[in-house]
């Protein structure tokens, strides 16, 4: 029973951090921006959902929708403040990274100012039922988290494959220079990319708040984990990010089980370092194909 419990925990955690990792991956490969502002997006969406739950209605679907919408809004905000003014300036990669990190830090401090240090909690989104599957007891929030994030990922991938905008984003991921020649506007596509990846971050925030509280500095850990999973999977690759998320989720669950929660970050980063030593471009490094710089 233990091993299944560990596995289900691993998959649940992987889903949440995987969403952020995929968002980081997509932003890097299409816009060339290592977006460290997902911490801000994450907290923004969390507080947005909390405000909606407090003042409007605490229906689960409404809270999830509010989180997604606030995440998308925060993504667009980051795009307007960082990407559009900076994207054609020299050293954009470094400048963009510093600017987005600044947004994350400023964001955390402003949340501290507005909402105070006391953590907020969202109501239970998925109720309190359990399900027995082949002798494994699955709690409602685990099932809900897995289903919601898989659905989100499915919709995003489907949109990227099937729609006009998705085609433009994929074209930009492969060759930004040729994309502008074909008439794809880098800035307008940037807004779409940031809105969609922001929405993914927003959903991750709402889902994680089922386990943790919403606090001003709570965006930092998901950000670090998201970025490191994206690195581990190979920046720019969605499949790589999914695989890395599952592996790192497994590492986290195993550590929790056998060593204790305080060692989680240590074992995770040791694992990431080990992967990057053996495969410098990550599990499926498409970095050089995705963006030649």
């Amino acid at each position, binding site marked *: 029973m233990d091993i299944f419990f560990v596995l289900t925990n691993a998959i649940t955690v992987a889903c949440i951090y995987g969403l952020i990792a995929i968002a980081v991956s997509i932003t890097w490969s299409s816009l060339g921006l290592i977006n460290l502002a997902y911490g801000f997006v994450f907290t923004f969406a969390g507080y947005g959902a909390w405000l909606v739950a407090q003042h409007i209605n605490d229906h689960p679907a409404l809270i999830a929708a509010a989180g997604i919408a606030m995440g998308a809004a925060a993504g667009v905000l980051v795009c307007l403040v960082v990407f559009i003014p900076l994207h054609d300036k020299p050293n954009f990669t470094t400048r963009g990274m510093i600017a987005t990190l600044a947004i994350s830090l400023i964001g955390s401090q402003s949340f501290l100012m507005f909402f105070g240090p006391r953590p907020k909690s969202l109501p239970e989104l998925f109720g309190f039922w359990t399900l027995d599957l082949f002798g494994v007891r699955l709690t409602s929030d685990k099932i809900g988290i897995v289903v919601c994030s898989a659905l989100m990922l499915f919709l995003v991938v489907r949109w990227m494959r099937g729609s006009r905008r998705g*085609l433009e984003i994929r074209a930009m991921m492969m060759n930004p220079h040729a994309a502008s020649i074909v008439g794809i506007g880098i800035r307008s596509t940037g807004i779409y990319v940031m809105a969609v990846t922001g929405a993914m971050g927003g959903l991750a925030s709402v889902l994680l708040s089922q386990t943790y509280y919403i606090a001003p500095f709570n965006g930092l850990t998901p950000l670090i984990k998201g970025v490191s999973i994206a690195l581990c999977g190979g920046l720019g690759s969605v499949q790589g990010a999914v695989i890395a998320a599952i592996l790192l989720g497994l590492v986290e669950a195993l550590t929790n089980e056998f060593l204790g929660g305080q060692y989680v970050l240590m074992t995770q980063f040791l694992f990431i370092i080990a992967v990057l030593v053996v495969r410098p471009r990550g599990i499926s490094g498409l970095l050089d194909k995705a963006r030649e710089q």
Partner: protein
Amino acid sequence: MSEILKVEGLSAGYGPLRVLHDLDLVINAGERVGIVGLNGHGKTTLFYAIAGLTGWQRGSIELAGKQIGRTRSQGPGRYTHQIVRQGLAIMPQGDEIFNGLTVEEHLDSGAFTPEAWRTRKERKERVLDIFQPLRKLMKTPVGRLSGGERRMVSIGRGLMTDARLYLADEPSLGLAPKIGSAVMDALLQIDLKGSAMFIAEQNVALLEGRVDRIIGMHAGKLKGEASAASRLGER
């Protein structure tokens, strides 16, 4: 006859390097113009300047009466998509191509105006009629194609919209002579319908007698019939 492209006093370059020196050039509707010159003498830079992709540029460029040139010192490509949307189709040199997209997606990506996007099926058919070999390859990623097939894809992509000016940058470069001339034949067959085509080429023999006029380019300056005025008098 209306002027599709009118360039006046165009200089452009990259950083401290000045590649184009005060060019004047006119291309009229319905014309096919060749530009020949050696490697590194500014043919591609001229095309890039028209598309706003050089490091810096100054001078006037009018596309169908609208000013698209501006004095720029940084941000290559910032306005390229807007210029392209005003009716410029670029068939770039070499492999400016999206390796992971299939041929079909690639052609779709060329149909950027709403009108072209709606009628993309018919447009794809039209391109496939010109480039028959692509018909079997529609679902293949472009990265797996041969050099000649890729060139067909990148030219076909340019034909997916109704451009006013087609810029074809060395369509035969790096291809076997037979395939190169086949690609050029296809390019010369295209019905212009009041738009214009500007072809850069190193091999004069491929253009000789098949385009309306040939301009020479040497060290960033134009030689020969840069304006069509004299030619028009003869007609």
